[in-house]
């Protein structure tokens, strides 16, 4: 059975070993599902969030995985709209990673809200001024688009394609994929942006609030750009990682080069704009509310090093590295640069979600700390477990890397 599901010409580890590999991830998933059950049955008191730290690990996770999952829309955009044909080698993997990231985020979001059964009210009584409404609309729609993009991969499974109807459907879907890539790009543009907008619009929080361009704060645009920049890096990183774990060559080196160059340029543009944005914030936006920016960084552990690490160490440095031909020539350095770029965005989302809430606001407030409960961590890890499971299964039974067979035959 298993043999007949594996794509022709692909070498996969024996089934028992594969199942053994799945066990720890399945265990993580099971533990996480138990934590989720507790949150549903007993309530969100199972978390360490509170009225002051109303957003915690989960929102941070949502923002982060959605940024990293941006590779799906952006690769699709480059491949289908800008016709960067070499990215065909990673588009399947990018779609799967995107689907994992987005479905994981939506799943966690459903646990995070107190009354998930009322989530549909957002569609029924939408407040179109709310960034969160924008996020909800775009996120649900984009997840559906991702599912549609995922479908052809599944339909092309060796066994499923023996059913003629399914393969014909796959063929037809493939033909209209450019439409979905377009829609996906549009939706991603708005939900990545409005995720950034979530914090940029917080008029009550001078640390998070940013100037508006039209109806959107600058974080709207910075989030889009940073997600687009880091998406290809994350694809590079995951592809390299999957290659290492499976001990296979999955894509030709040129693909890495293309991804790195795109990521590098976008990251550079992002860093420049982020720098300008920070300067405007430091010199105008924040002082207008009566707060000098230096006071935001007077609450350890959040010193000015955070800003430096985010913009320079994990922004400018990886951008330059990704653009340097000599760095790109060495896989180790290339992967390091991609990892640094990802870490930069991860840190940015951390600052946005956590530092924003930790800083004191009322005159007698003190700096707040928060550490997630095991239930929160377990649910977090469940997303990881779910991701690895789904990716592993997809990698085994679907043809994620079209070049793999050819590269394997070449020896």
């Amino acid at each position, binding site marked *: 059975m298993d043999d007949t599901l594996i794509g022709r010409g692909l070498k996969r580890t024996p089934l028992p070993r594969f199942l053994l590999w799945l066990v720890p991830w399945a265990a993580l998933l099971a533990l996480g599902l138990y934590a989720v059950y507790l949150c549903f049955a007993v309530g969100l008191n199972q978390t360490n969030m509170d009225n002051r730290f109303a957003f915690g690990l989960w929102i941070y996770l949502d923002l982060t995985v959605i940024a990293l999952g941006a590779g799906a829309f952006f690769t699709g955009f480059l491949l289908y709209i800008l016709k960067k044909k070499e990215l065909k080698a990673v588009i399947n993997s990018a779609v799967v990673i995107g689907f994992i990231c987005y479905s994981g985020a939506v799943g966690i979001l459903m646990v995070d809200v107190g009354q998930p*059964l*009322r989530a*549909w*009210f957002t569609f*029924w*009584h939408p407040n179109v001024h709310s960034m969160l409404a924008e996020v909800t609309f775009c996120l649900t729609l984009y997840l559906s688009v991702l599912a549609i993009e995922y479908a052809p991969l599944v339909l092309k499974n060796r066994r499923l394609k023996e059913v003629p109807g399914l393969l014909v459907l796959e063929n037809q879907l493939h033909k209209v994929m450019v439409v979905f890539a377009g829609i996906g790009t549009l939706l991603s543009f708005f939900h990545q942006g409005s995720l950034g907008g979530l914090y940029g619009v917080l008029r009550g929080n001078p640390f998070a609030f940013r100037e508006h361009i039209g109806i959107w704060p600058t974080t709207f645009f910075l989030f889009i750009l940073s997600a687009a920049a880091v998406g290809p890096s994350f694809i590079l990183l995951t592809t390299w990682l999957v290659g290492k774990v499976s001990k296979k060559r999955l894509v030709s080196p040129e693909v890495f080069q293309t991804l790195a160059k795109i990521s590098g340029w976008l990251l550079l543009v992002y860093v420049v704009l982020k720098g300008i944005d920070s300067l405007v914030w430091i010199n105008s936006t924040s002082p207008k509310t009566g707060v000098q920016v230096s006071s935001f960084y007077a609450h350890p552990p959040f010193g000015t090093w955070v800003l430096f690490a985010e913009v320079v160490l994990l922004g400018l440095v990886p951008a330059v590295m990704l653009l340097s031909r000599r760095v790109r020539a060495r896989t180790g350095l290339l992967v390091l640069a991609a990892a640094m770029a990802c870490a930069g965005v991860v840190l940015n989302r951390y600052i946005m979600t956590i530092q924003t809430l930790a800083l004191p606001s009322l005159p007698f407030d003190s700096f707040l700390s928060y550490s997630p409960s095991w239930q929160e961590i377990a649910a977090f890890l469940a997303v990881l477990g779910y991701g690895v499971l789904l990716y592993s299964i997809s990698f085994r039974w679907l043809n994620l890397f079209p070049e793999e067979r050819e590269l394997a035959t070449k020896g």
Partner: protein
Amino acid sequence: MKLELSRRDLFLAGGGAVAGIALSPVPWKLLDDLSIWTQQPPTPTPRPAGPLAFRFTSCALCPASCGLKARCFGAQPVGFAAVPGHPASDGGLCPLGLTAHHLAKHPLRANHPERVSGGKRERIDRAAATAALSAALAACGRDPKRTFAVVDGRPGRSLSRTYRALAAATGGLYVTPPAAGAALSLEALAKRFDGGALALGVDFSKARRVVSFGTPVLTDAGTPGLLARLRAESRRRPAAERIEVIQVEATRGRSAALADRYIPIAPGTEAAFALGLAHVLLDEKLADAAFLEARTTGLADFAALSARFAPALVEQKTGVGAGVVTALARDLAANRPALVLGGDPTAGPLSGETEAAIAALNLLLGAPFGALPVRSEAPRETDGDAKLAAATSLDALPDGSVGFLLLDATVAEGMVPWARLERALAADALVVSFSPFRAGLGEKATLLIPGPAPLEESIELEGPADAPFATLAFAPALLSPPKDLALPEEILREAAEAAGLSLPAPAAGARSAALLAARRGRLYDPAAASFVAVGDVASPDALGELFARGACWVDDATPEPKGRFALLKDGEAPRLLETALGAPTALPASLASLPRVAVSAAPPSLLLTKLTRETALFSAPAAAIPTAARA
């Protein structure tokens, strides 16, 4: 032409119908209705028990006896508001009073007599409870070594009269806890007066400096919020009219945090500090010479004593800088009227020597009859020819000899420590409590005969002993007690009869009659927010009707009596010297958690967990509300 219907046609027709309905407004409307329907609260809102009405009464939970404006639906009160202008509280109220309507259904409420033996609670019927009482009463009459003692938290009620009759009939003791004035060191001052019995109250509105030796004047003591309000109002008047509070205390409690000045002092050295202030006042001739001349005795002896307490020595003893002592004394002298209070109602009075020093300080500042006005008592019915025991203090209880201890429902454990009572008990003593709660002293009883819970009975409430005027309210009941509840008065009379003791007939309406006869004071009608002179009240019935509407009687000002205060009593000097020169004591254990809980006989409402658990305002939350109450 022949019409043929294939299965495909049927499917098409069905599908078309579904699609048609889907595109019609019907599903839209259904979804919208679903959205609105799911927006109903999952737990139904409670139904009102009747039309909205406001009723007035007074809070019996602590000695402050605040006026309550109850928001009721039918017979059910659902919330309270303060009553501004109320003579006893003038808008004062605290969290305990605001949740008084929860207490009747408190999880620790007992509705039936319970016998406790070997740690087990066993429900008994009323007859058995009465029998136990009567047997114990009879035994007390026979055995001189098994005394009957009754502790009454609110003397002066008609139930108190029954207690006193019972104590007299059995040769037992009628014990009352120290009045609130004792905890403010006012009683100690009044006892130095040679012109007859005297009660002093506090009139913060007449004071410009309030020195508090550990008394939570801004929080728990006296009428809630009164001093804080007067002080705040004074801050918007000219500087010379401002009230300032100086808190002298070893730990920085809530009142110290709120005081204008907080002077941390080594615990137990208050006497030295007070004598230090006295030293500066006398040394620099800042004391109220006219008052000392006209109203005190023993100035020379006291001056000789206080002369030893130069600021330098005081600094050494108390840890308070000499300059602080001198400056405070000058400040007090310059901003008279000033008054000095000491002791914490929830922690009990200070030592007699410290109180003597505080009393002397008040005399040097000329506080009596000004900021510490003479306070009358509400008229009472006379004892007549009934045999009634006189009130005694806790100190009168001999050790190990009480065979039958009766605890009234109004006795707060914070005012009458159980350890003191336990010391007085004989072996196998019967401890009966009329508390409606399995909490506080009610939990210590071997026989619990629960009486009405707060708001379930009409109760005579005298105002706080520290108020400048005497007040009296017959706080009407808002709730009806459980149907088969045994009223303490009835059950006691039954038991006494069974034990062959004869009690005088209950003096119903005697107190109102006494009030009418005295023709003193005015009555505040909270519904109308106006006063009626007692002289204008036509009949006892009219008076009863006023009280049933929540009215409160307030006395007129009392004339200054003739007589002098002793600065030093005979033989007091050496003890005072010894105390003041003694070493600091250990820090007292902090008892307070929720305000006034220690002086309330009832456990706090569960709702007050909001304050203890969900805010950082009150410490020691666990002690405040028993976790068992959650069960």
